[in-house]
């Protein structure tokens, strides 16, 4: 008689050898945007679980083509057995980079916060350089940043500095929160809002304060995803440990919100799973995407839905990393509450940029080809703008389809009368 100490057999297998949960069904390969676009990429099934079975931490990582994985995680979204396909690829990429050494470009792109702080301090000059064809040619040759990729515009005034001023003179230009300030949230604004799109941060603050929510802005470090995608998990872990330490100190009952899909996913999931940071699970369980949070308020009857009509027809592009959150599309639900807003989903898969992936000289063309279906659909639809929760998706859609783009919060802020 076999004892029942190993009750759920498959659970045991998954705990001891999670890779064995892969049944080799190939579903991941059918949705992989890179495998769909270039035949030199061997696909997530082979580079993830199949190769993982033969990887040994004491041996060199030799799998060819690993760095072509863009990290969109659609393979994981698709996997019927919930295998962490992309995490296997990520770990192998990181190990390979540690063995071979990183390029200056990948080192720089991993240090987004450093780069952005420099760009912000020298904003007029940096922005001029980023748009100067000669400088861009030089950058392509020396650093490996593709010259046709529009680079982000830096702002001299950071969100952090703005918020300090905002705190000093309680503004609430939109009137008091109608439903009483019972909630406090800590806003993880991320490098993008801090150095490139302060306005989005201001809108997030305005929307939350309009609903009577106290916004706290704790000191924070880069979430670490630029480091992760540039095969530098050591750096990402350093950032993550710092963020987890700071966010753990928030008083109980303070929820954490993020307005960037990928920053949010790092805090919710990757800190605990990929980077194995102690205490990350507790922090992750308090993190909400900003639209997820607002929808939760709405379901609790706490969202002010006295919206002004916003007469606009917009397309919504769901970022790949939003799908990984497992929360559906809260932005779409919120937008449908606003009179005058006609929102349609443009379901053409990955936009192709994947953070810093599409910036690189050897990947730019591939990135544009991956996004081409989305670009065509956006052009054909002829809407006012494309909404996406992720900043690099927005950059890519603007570049590839020549359309305007915004975070869904932009419409919500307008519906509250915020300019």
């Amino acid at each position: 008689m076999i004892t029942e100490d190993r009750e759920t057999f498959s659970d045991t297998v998954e705990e001891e050898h999670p890779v064995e949960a892969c049944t080799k069904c190939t579903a991941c390969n059918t949705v992989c945007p890179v495998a769909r676009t270039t035949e030199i990429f061997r696909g997530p099934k082979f580079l993830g679980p199949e190769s993982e079975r033969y990887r040994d931490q004491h041996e060199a990582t030799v799998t060819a083509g690993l760095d072509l994985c863009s990290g969109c995680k659609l393979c994981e979204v698709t996997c019927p057995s919930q295998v962490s396909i992309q995490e296997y690829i990520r770990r192998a990429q990181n190990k390979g980079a540690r063995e071979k050494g990183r390029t200056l470009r990948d080192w720089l792109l991993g240090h987004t916060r450093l780069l952005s702080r420099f760009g912000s301090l020298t904003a007029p000059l940096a922005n001029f350089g980023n748009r100067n064809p000669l400088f861009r040619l030089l950058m392509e040759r020396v650093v490996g940043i593709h010259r046709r990729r529009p680079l982000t515009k830096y702002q001299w005034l950071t969100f952090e500095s703005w918020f300090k001023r905002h705190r000093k003179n309680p503004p609430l230009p939109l009137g008091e929160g109608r439903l009483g300030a019972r909630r406090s949230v800590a806003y993880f604004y991320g490098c993008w809002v801090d150095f490139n799109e302060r306005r989005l941060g201001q809108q997030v603050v305005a929307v939350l304060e309009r609903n009577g929510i106290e916004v706290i802005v704790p000191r924070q470090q880069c979430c670490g995803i630029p480091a992760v995608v540039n095969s530098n998990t050591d750096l990402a872990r350093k950032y993550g440990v710092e963020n987890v330490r700071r966010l753990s100190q928030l008083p109980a009952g303070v929820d954490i919100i993020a307005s960037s899909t990928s920053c949010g996913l790092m805090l919710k999931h990757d800190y605990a799973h990929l980077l194995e940071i102690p205490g990350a699970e507790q922090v992750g369980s308090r993190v909400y995407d900003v639209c997820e949070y607002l929808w939760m308020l709405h379901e609790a009857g706490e969202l002010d839905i006295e919206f002004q009509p916003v007469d606009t027809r917009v397309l919504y592009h769901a970022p790949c990393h939003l799908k990984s959150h497992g929360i559906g599309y809260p932005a779409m639900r919120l937008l449908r509450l606003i009179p005058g807003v006609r929102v349609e989903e443009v379901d053409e898969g990955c936009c192709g940029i994947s953070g810093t992936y599409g910036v690189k000289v050897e990947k730019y063309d591939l990135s544009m080809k991956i996004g081409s279906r989305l670009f065509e659909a956006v052009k054909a639809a002829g809407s006012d703008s494309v909404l996406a929760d992720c900043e690099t998706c927005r950059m890519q859609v603007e570049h590839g389809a020549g359309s305007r783009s915004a975070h869904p919060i932009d419409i919500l802020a307008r519906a509250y009368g915020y300019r």
Partner: protein
Amino acid sequence: MRFDIAVVGSGLSALIATRTLQRAGRKPVLIWPGLSSLYFLYATVDVLGYANPTTAEAVEDPVSGVRQLIADHPEHPYARAGLPALQNGSSLLLDWLREAGFNWQGTLDRNLLLPTATGTPKPSCLVPTSMAAGDLHRNEPIVFCGFDGYQDFIPELAAANLSHGWNGGSRNVGAVRVPLPGVKPDRLFTSIDIARSMEDATFRRDVAERLRHAVKDDRARLGLPAVLGLTHDTDVHVEFEKETGHPVFEIPTVPPSVLGLRLFDRLRRHLQETGIEMIWAAPAHEAEVANGRCLRIHLKSAGREQPVEAKAYILALEDAVDGAWRAGAHTVRDPFFHQVLAQHATPGERTDESLFAPQPFAAIGYPVSDRLQPTHQDGHPLASNVFLAGGGIAGYDPTGIKARGGMAIATGYRAAQEAMAA
């Protein structure tokens, strides 16, 4: 999160249930745990191929066959769902496919006999138009066409098997192989790769040209592995027939199935385009029940459990693949109500030694009420507002009788009706 009705699953039964609710003006949400059986198993919708798993004689009229099966086996999932659910569900599916721009054909009262990749005849009921020309009730000669270096379809094998006993044997069955343009011989490629390339008109014309030269018999129909496009299949098939000058039919290959992938993608996109929300990457478990009703289920989302509240829940899970149940060494439990679904002295009791015999594990599932509610062993519903569709139902083994699609449609449709009334 609160929704009107929550449908859990991503297989055909989940899609049918969602569409049924949508057509009735309800607002379902589709919660999917990852891709499901549609990617692996489906090419056609089979309603009833064989009266029982051991007969060799194919059923000619599936709907009469199902009527008989219901009369003989009142506990069968077809009997629980009822014949009207099969009939209404099938016409809902055909209308839906048409609206989504997908060409399918067939009726419930007649099976086609279509050649498989190994050249055996298989009874199928509702089929994509790109497969219909393969019907073995017709007499035109067949030439199976393969591609050099493509390992999942061997035209000579299909031809050799089919020529045993069909329509005058080898006189009327042939096989050819052509190289694919621009493919290096050492590269491993799948049907998905070829299907993507076939959407490129230059590539497709080149293949058609090669086949036109290779096939000598002007009257022949061409049987190809299912590679005629991944998303623009209808156009690809029509153009390819013109370009080769022959009727062309597709044959399903090993997973991932191009035919299943097309079906799933088309229907999923159509649901999204018509306003149905999907929650991706969120396996569901843990039903909270109070006073006989399910209050909420929980999703394993990033960072934390996400409660989902709805008026009714449809668990349209395709057995273990979708997490309908979890097997321990001896006990099989369900992740929603923690019921013991099966108990075995050794795991070996779940399988038959012959791969082709009915497998005991296939029949494991929730016992259900006449309204498709999951029940305790005593037949009492676990929750009055939870309904089962598809492979999660006990005794649901569609493999031997070739009834997977029909059972998914019937149970999906019926579960949706019950959910609306709950």
